[in-house]
């Protein structure tokens, strides 16, 4: 059993970064999409949701084609002296791409569930579209957006296939927990695999517990304001 704990930090760093990216992008695109109708945006939807249904290896392969040495983005980055493939950013890109649809879908669903009467009431009260979003739509959709973030984080934490394709398995650089588990099992180091699995379960449970208490805290804070 090695004392190298780098997969833990790598996994957490990767998942947190990927979740932040999907949170911002997913929310922004879902908000933009909420007011758009037609074939164009619907087609975009299909592309956004593709990573959810494709096998992660296919997603990884496509990313490899895009970011590889001969890929369009890969070449562009080469000009600036950067390579993505087999680097830490590659783990983030892979995790972000596969977790994006979960975030996007959750935000869209929770925005659509906000009663349009409330948005219209806000407009008749003189609110600008930004104020309608900031003060009415966002707070009411917030629990769903948060749930989307948890799902996205969990998906990012568990990402394996696309990560392996794009980032490989470089200890201390791109070897996240799921990849460490795979290679531990392959090398017949069962204790190592159990150890990593236990860590993964602990992180996931901890995350869920944090979210749970945070929402509880929000609820009781609101109660205190009201009673006070």
């Amino acid at each position, binding site marked *: 059993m090695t004392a190298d704990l780098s997969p833990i930090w790598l996994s957490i760093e990767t998942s947190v970064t990927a979740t932040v990216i999907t949170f911002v992008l997913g929310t922004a695109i879902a908000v933009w999409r909420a007011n758009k109708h037609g074939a164009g945006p619907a087609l975009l939807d299909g592309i956004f949701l593709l990573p959810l249904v494709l096998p992660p290896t296919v997603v990884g392969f496509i990313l490899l084609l895009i970011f590889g040495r001969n890929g369009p983005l890969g070449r562009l980055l080469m000009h600036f002296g950067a390579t993505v493939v087999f680097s830490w950013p590659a783990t983030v890109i892979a995790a972000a791409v596969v977790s994006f649809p979960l975030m996007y879908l959750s935000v869209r669903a929770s925005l659509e569930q906000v009663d349009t009467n409330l948005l219209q009431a806000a*407009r008749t009260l*003189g*609110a600008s579209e930004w104020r309608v979003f900031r003060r009415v739509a966002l707070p009411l959709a917030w629990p769903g957006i948060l749930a989307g973030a948890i799902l996205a984080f969990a998906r990012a934490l568990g990402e394996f296939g696309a990560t392996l394709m794009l980032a490989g398995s470089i200890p201390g650089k791109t070897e996240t927990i799921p990849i460490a588990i795979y290679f531990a099992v392959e090398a017949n180091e069962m204790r190592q695999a159990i150890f990593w699995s236990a860590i993964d379960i602990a992180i996931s449970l901890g995350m869920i517990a944090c979210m749970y208490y945070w929402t509880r805290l929000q609820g009781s804070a609101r109660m205190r*304001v009201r009673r006070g």
Partner: protein
Amino acid sequence: MALEVRFTKRLRSFTLAPDFSCDAEPLAILGPSGAGKSMTLRCIAGLERPDEGSIRLNGRTLFDSAAGINVPARQRGVGLLFQNYALFPHLTVMQNVAFGAQRVPRGEREARARKQIAEVHLEGLEHRLPRELSGGEQQRAALARALAIEPQALLLDEPLSALDTYLRSKIEQQLITTLAQFRKPTLYVTHNIEEAYRVSTKLVVLANGKVVANGTRDGVFRDPPNLEVALLTGLKNFSRARPVTASSIEALDWKCVLHCASAQQAKVAFVGIRAHHIGFAFGESKPNGTNVFPCWLVRVSETPFHATLYLHLHEPSKIEGQYHLQAEVTKEQWSLFRDQPQPWLATLPPETLLVLPE
């Protein structure tokens, strides 16, 4: 000071084409469900866009298709009270009422909201969330929120329909008092005939998107222009009819000739009588007097204070449940003549007959 509304908007099953104006007094808009009442309010508030026409408020154009003007809802200064109140569930009463006061200096906001809350008698509930309020309190909070923006016109969309019946009359009275103080164009949409009558002395009747009657409430109720309006204002009894002489008409469905006192008599297509206008007499062997006919009771439907009698004229009903007239009497009257031998004598007073053209 006036709100002038004249536009068309194509909807799925009909074209909405309201055409009316409203000054500083409340105007009731009466119509059945799906007549386009709510859509009319939403167009005036700027939440929906009419196809053509114009909406003007105190000389200011809110919408004009010809001039390409469509002022956004947030700049119209029109208060809208939603049918389900649409209070922001995550904000307290105070925050709801102060929501529209974003241009008021921060320090003044709370004082103004407090004043508005006091005006609808919600003191002490400032820090409650909407779900912690009763239906009536929610309605008043929504009213305070709409009035807090100091609107130039107020639109109320069935403001009492979400309330329990036993709460209604009290809240209706409070609402009428508040509206009387507003003194700016006010539209009050309802499908309840009696509510419309109590709220306003002026009445617009909307059916299938069109204004079918527009006038004083007494004029519209006493002298509806056609059968449609008569039915919308609560007429229960009508019969096809044709003129016979200068002062009489034949009611074809009721199989009788009626004397009537209307100048419309020559153009009559339908005759109607409101359920509470039918009078009764007993014990005479033969009908005499004007418009008196023997009748038999088919069935009766009772409420705590009233009874509705379903009557068959001239002979007992041969077909189960078939009747000609429904008459409404008080329980006291009903207790007096329920045991009288039939036939009873029904009187249709000539001055109460509604003589309706095609």
